[in-house]
């Protein structure tokens, strides 16, 4: 299945826009895949990012479906 990803913040333009994942993949597995793909400096950012799936907040247990839109947001609270 295809999951579309969009990133906001410092991970901008550094990660894949689309991932082909197995049916039933959880958000936890997606995060793990992203962590494997990114360089060491981005790992803490991905680990601490907010994930929003189809406009709703998602947890590690959230099961992803074909054509889901996943927003990966770095929670940088600006001043």
């Amino acid at each position, binding site marked *: 299945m295809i999951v579309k990803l*969009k990133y*906001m*913040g*410092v991970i*901008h333009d550094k990660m894949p826009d689309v991932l082909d994942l197995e049916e039933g993949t959880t958000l936890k597995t997606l995060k793990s895949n992203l962590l494997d793909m990114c360089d060491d*400096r*981005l790992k*803490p*950012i991905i680990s*601490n*990012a*907010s*994930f*929003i799936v189809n*406009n*709703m*907040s998602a*947890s590690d247990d959230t099961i992803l479906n074909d054509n889901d839109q996943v*927003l990966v*947001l*770095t*929670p*940088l*609270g*600006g*001043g």
Partner: protein
Amino acid sequence: MLYGYAGKMLFIDLSTGEIEERETPKELAENFIGGYGFGAKILYDMMKPGTDPLGPDSVIGFITGPASATKAWFGGRYTVVNKSPITGGWNDANSGGFFGPELKKAGYDALFVKGISPKPVYIYINDGKVEIRDASHLWGMDTKKVWEALKEETNEPKLRVTAIGPAGERVSLISCPINDGHRAPARGGTGPIMGSKKLKAIAVRGTKDIPVAHPDKVLEINKKVTEAMKDNQMAQAFGTYGTGVGTPASALNGDSPVKNWAGVGVIDFGEEKAEKMGSIALDRYKTKKYNCSSCPLGCGAEYEVNDGRWPLGKTERPEYETAAAFGSTLLCGEPDAMLKCNEICNTYGFDTISAGMTIAWAMECYERGILSKEELDGIELTWGNGEAIVKIMQKMADGEGCGAILSHGSQYAANYWNKGKEYLQTASGIELPMHDPRHSPGLARTYKYDPTPGRHVKGGIGGVQMLEPIKEENYIFDGTGPMDLGMTLFTEVLNASSMCYFSTLSAPSETVYEYISATTGMNFDQETAMNTGLRIFMIRYAFNLREGIKPKDMTLTKRAIGEPPLEAGPLKGYRVDVEKLGRNFFKEAGIDFDSGLPDKALLEKLGGLDEVIKDIYGEDK
């Protein structure tokens, strides 16, 4: 020798022209550190309860701290303190740039001003020489022009100036002084105090060295902090793109308020607009990085904007708060309008948060038919309409038509028109900042119950929640007191030291204590820090208590706590039990929530609070 301090403070009475120099007492330094610690103690002693904030007995202070001008990283801030003309209680606001360290190098840890001058004046301080000078020729001038004019007039190209613009001159309640062209101790009504005193500006030049107890230790800590920063992505991101790097993510994850706090970022604002308002997208305008004094991070930048509807030429990169206040809050995805409003605020001297939030209130009132087109001088103030936002902002700056009303903030405007009060988004009358307690619930306690209400740079658990993804456990409101208080007391010390909040991005919290120990020579350990933080909190709290303001009197509007909860998006269904958070906090702080009384034995144990004990419990303490 008082290490870490200039050793003197200035007291100026603009009614009489009297200039008095006093030693900085060692006891004051040990008990209250600097910044608003000094400020709260001195204003508590100088001002009687019930003093008119805009009257001659009102005092305004400009205060540095022991990290300032000592080579300690992040030590470039100064704090303005006053009684707020909006809340009628305590107010403090701090600012970066170079003004604070320059004041200290000119010989003074702090400057306190009372009285009202019969004509516009500015205070000129040059290496220990102090004058009150005529400012009639500067009255009406914008803050950037004042700085240039004063550099020329004093023949001091390195002069640092904090000045009000036309907004402060008109005693706009949401006005503020601006230093270094774009840095502002903006919040809570600092500008109207200067305007009411006819104090246009303070100009300082200083070349003195500040005695430091352990200068080698300061450099050693600097090295440690610099190393830590290299491995910290957040620090690197702020250093490259500024605080606005988080604007798009915050607009979508629920951190930023949307549509006057009633909207949902992912639905009402959307990814395209969010991304356009962020500083990564705006990086094309950057010409130069800007670091405040002694800052290794450098979250500021100079911009050159020559396109769009409002080509500004040289301007400055807006902060996250500004981008959100003139962006998602208004559903405006037009960066040129936001940049223009930022420039108007910097030159006329407005708090960008309150200005944006006031327009958001007016916008919702217009959309709901509460404010008519005629009342808004023919402007169709529809959601996201950048052209209309700029027109209203300019009217506020010029004090013209509806702008004359809106320039005093949303609470004033709602009272003036006597309508739309249910759409105010405020804490005790102060427009809320750009971090939503429905995302970071601890912020509700900070916004509502801190003695300086409605601030995102006061401490508490919300400051950590803001940096994390939404977590279910953050919405369990039991047992929050110890951590909420601990983090608040840390922030009291941080702010009083004159260090920047962003030092916490790259350095562990004990770094602040290490810097204070190194500059002052005090043994400033964790226990000292917590006691000092609580003493500072208590004196700010006591200032309000003496004005009759108790926790139960403080207010926070309901959207910010999910009443009613949002029906969609990442914050769907969340509510915040702010009273419970408040009760937990005050119990831990030794303050009875219902009566508002602090524990007498605790005050005695903390020390340095004799006047507070006397005022609350009578002469025989």
